[in-house]
């Protein structure tokens, strides 16, 4: 489903950025913006969120622990290989440690519903030799006796080498007062190097006046180093055998591990969605058949509601039941027509992306297509005007009218001549109302559109002018910000059902409030009264 434009129109990412899965698998899932069109699948997802919401509410401490475990899980490299290196084994071990902890923390209700069961204790124990149940991994010598013997020999040699070094440093300090304990070499003035013992230190030119001096170690030191090199090569071979042995055990459980990854992804997104559901007091969307009406009770458009909260202004949630599938929304400028469309788009996207919704009730259908048609929100397509862009998008949307489609049409054709624009909108309404699969919300300023069967007309209540007039002081010099705030204060963002003949004349009042020149306001009013010369 193509939802890019709708996502932009409803400013969905403002909300989506609050949706924070914690594991890399959850994050990958989030970035896919998956929209579901299967009603049963969606119902299952809503129910699963319900289970997790209940779990979080009853087990807040364990929930925090689960979130911490999800956060600790890292992205595995491919499991499709024959031999893993230490860091890849570490990742598998870390996954198992955290998944087992999650399994222990979850209750039976969640585990049974989501089919979560950790069954890799044996493998985890095998990966935990010498390391207990820590997440870290170390290619322990306990995997192989030969490796153990080899490493003991290396450690013994290291001790001997350190002793020789220490003795030689001591000798050099005593004889020449040069301290190599913290330095690999020392730069000494040439004039001071005459007496240096060539058996103890090696000299080379550093610059015109200085020499670079390094300690010389006895032959035994180099012999031991050679032995160490041989042992290191042997260690490498033995480690490879151990890696093969461990890899074989992991590969035997490859499919089980892949199953864990799927469960982690699912659990992670459910926890992230449930956390938002609790934060915003969300409810399960009510999915009905394709012909049912969309109904919203206290539906919140969160990008705006949060902004209002921040600005300490009142936000009015949406309450409406749309009895027909073709809905025309009229109303004044700044009256909330576009916000209504955005609210429906936002709630619908949430519903079909498997979220709960910030609404007391949101009753809707599942749509195969959710289209926004209106102002171009992206970069302009070369050669395509604003009207051209709308027509292009409408034409594309119409191609999918054989499947269930939601159209959000915001002030269509506002950039073309009003007579033809109104005619096209009338034609659209007639056409849409005859399509069984199409649910459309059309916001417009055009009044007195023709009446069609199965087309409902709504209007935003608009400015409460009587209250506004009591407050507004003509003499006072308001700033633009104050004027906008005034409009917001007295604007009634409620929707009411009207007929096609309803007229709204808020534009002049709003222009007046925004400070338009009095002469123009007066002429406008005269023109409308027919007294205009």
């Amino acid at each position, binding site marked *: 489903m193509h939802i890019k434009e709708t996502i932009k129109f409803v400013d969905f990412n403002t909300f989506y950025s609050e949706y924070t899965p914690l594991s890399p698998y959850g994050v990958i899932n989030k970035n896919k913006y998956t929209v579901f069109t299967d009603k049963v699948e969606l119902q299952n997802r809503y129910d699963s969120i319900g289970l997790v919401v209940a779990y979080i509410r009853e087990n807040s401490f364990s929930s925090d622990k689960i979130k911490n475990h999800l956060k600790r899980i890292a992205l595995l490299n491919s499991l499709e290989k024959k031999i893993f290196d*230490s*860091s*890849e084994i570490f990742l598998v071990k870390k996954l198992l440690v955290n998944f087992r902890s999650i399994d222990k923390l979850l209750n039976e209700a969640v585990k049974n519903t989501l089919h979560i069961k950790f069954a890799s204790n044996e493998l985890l124990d095998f990966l935990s030799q010498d390391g207990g149940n820590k997440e870290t*991994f170390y290619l322990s010598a306990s995997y192989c006796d030969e490796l153990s013997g080899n490493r003991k020999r290396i450690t013994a040699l290291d001790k001997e080498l350190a002793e020789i070094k220490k003795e030689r440093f001591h000798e050099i300090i005593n004889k020449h007062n040069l301290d190599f304990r*913290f330095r690999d070499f020392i730069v000494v003035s040439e004039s001071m190097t005459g007496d240096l013992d060539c058996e103890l230190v090696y000299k080379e030119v550093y610059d015109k006046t200085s020499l670079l001096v390094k300690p010389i170690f006895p032959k035994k030191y180099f012999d031991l180093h050679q032995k160490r090199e041989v042992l290191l090569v042997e260690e490498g071979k033995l480690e490879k055998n151990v890696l093969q042995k461990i890899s074989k055990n992991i590969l035997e459980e490859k499919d089980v591990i892949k199953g864990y990854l799927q469960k982690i992804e699912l659990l992670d997104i459910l926890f992230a969605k449930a956390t938002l559901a609790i934060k915003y007091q969300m409810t399960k969307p009510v999915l009905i058949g394709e012909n049912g009406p969309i109904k919203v009770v206290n539906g919140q458009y969160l990008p705006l509601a949060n902004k209002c909260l921040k600005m300490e202004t009142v936000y009015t949630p949406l309450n409406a039941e749309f009895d027909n599938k073709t809905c025309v929304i009229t109303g004044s400028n700044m009256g909330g027509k576009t916000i209504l469309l955005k609210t429906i788009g936002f709630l619908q996207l949430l519903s079909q992306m498997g979220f709960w919704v910030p609404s007391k009730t949101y009753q809707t259908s599942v749509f195969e297509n959710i289209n926004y048609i209106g102002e171009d929100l992206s970069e302009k397509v070369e050669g395509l005007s604003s009207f051209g862009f709308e027509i292009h998008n409408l034409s594309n949307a119409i191609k999918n009218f054989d499947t269930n489609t939601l159209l959000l049409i915001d002030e269509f054709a506002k950039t073309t001549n009003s007579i033809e624009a109104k005619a096209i909108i009338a034609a659209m309404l007639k056409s849409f109302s005859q399509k069984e699969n199409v649910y459309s919300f059309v916001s417009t300023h055009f009044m007195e559109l023709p009446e069609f069967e199965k087309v409902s007309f709504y209007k935003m209540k608009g400015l409460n002018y009587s209250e506004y007039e009591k407050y507004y002081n003509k003499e006072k010099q308001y700033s633009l910000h104050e004027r906008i705030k005034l409009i917001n204060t007295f604007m009634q963002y409620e929707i009411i059902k009207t007929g096609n003949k309803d007229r709204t004349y808020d534009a002049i009042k709003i222009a007046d409030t925004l400070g338009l020149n009095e002469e123009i306001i007066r002429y406008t009013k005269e023109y409308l009264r027919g007294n205009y010369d």
Partner: protein
Amino acid sequence: MSSTIAEQLVNKTTFLVGNKKNAGKTTFLNYALKQVREVVSPTFFTIGIDGETSDLIFETPKPRVYTEIGDFVVTTDLMINKSDALFEIIHVFPYKTVLGRLVLAKTLRNGTIELVGSEDNKQLAEIVDYLKDEEHIHTIIIDGAASRATQVASIKNSSFYYLIKLDQRTINADINKFKAIALVSKFKCIDAIEKVEEKLVFELKGALTESKLTLIPEDCDVLLIDDFTKIFLTFSQITELQRRLEIVYKIQYQLNSFVVILKDIIKSDFEKLLEQHNIQENILYNPYAY
């Protein structure tokens, strides 16, 4: 001297920044690590991939980095597998380099390790955050890339050593750069400016270059820039600018010391040069010099 270095490094995030490639950063890293180990197990890593194979100062093969039991190292899985030391993998970072995926490893057996790091400052900051927040590691030493100090800006409250190799052949250019760095490293953070609200502050986004000087309003009292790495002016251009305004940073830095490595220059001659140029900086001379 050694106790001073350890004191400066313990419980801090410290960058080693050089004025050019092979300024002796890795040699200094080994030296500093030995000092720190006397107090605490250090964590160290590098920025990017060092393609050099030899140290031009000492004209010796590129120094190897020694790691000892208890140290924490950030490098790639490939380098861990190649090392003669033995490691426990503590964490695998979600960042890949051409030489493998970055890991945090704890040293279980002494040896040498080749360091490979991320060049991305955001990733660098995330690695440091991880070390501090998740592993509670607080002594971090980062071998920074040569001629670039932008990494220092990516970590809040970090300090740095500025290693300068001075060669007789390039002494004039080097001393001028030294002077400029010494000057800009002393500018304050905006939080430390008194009555800043009464001053006209102009914030310049991005680099402060010669061409951007004209953007600065004549009546401005304070010029705010992100950090000292954004200044691309000569010493004389900076002093000229300072005559009419104060330059301040958004981020606070701490320059521990300049580490000066002299080649074909006698220390006393260099000290005279410092006097001539009125440079009175805290200088740590080549710690390898006797």
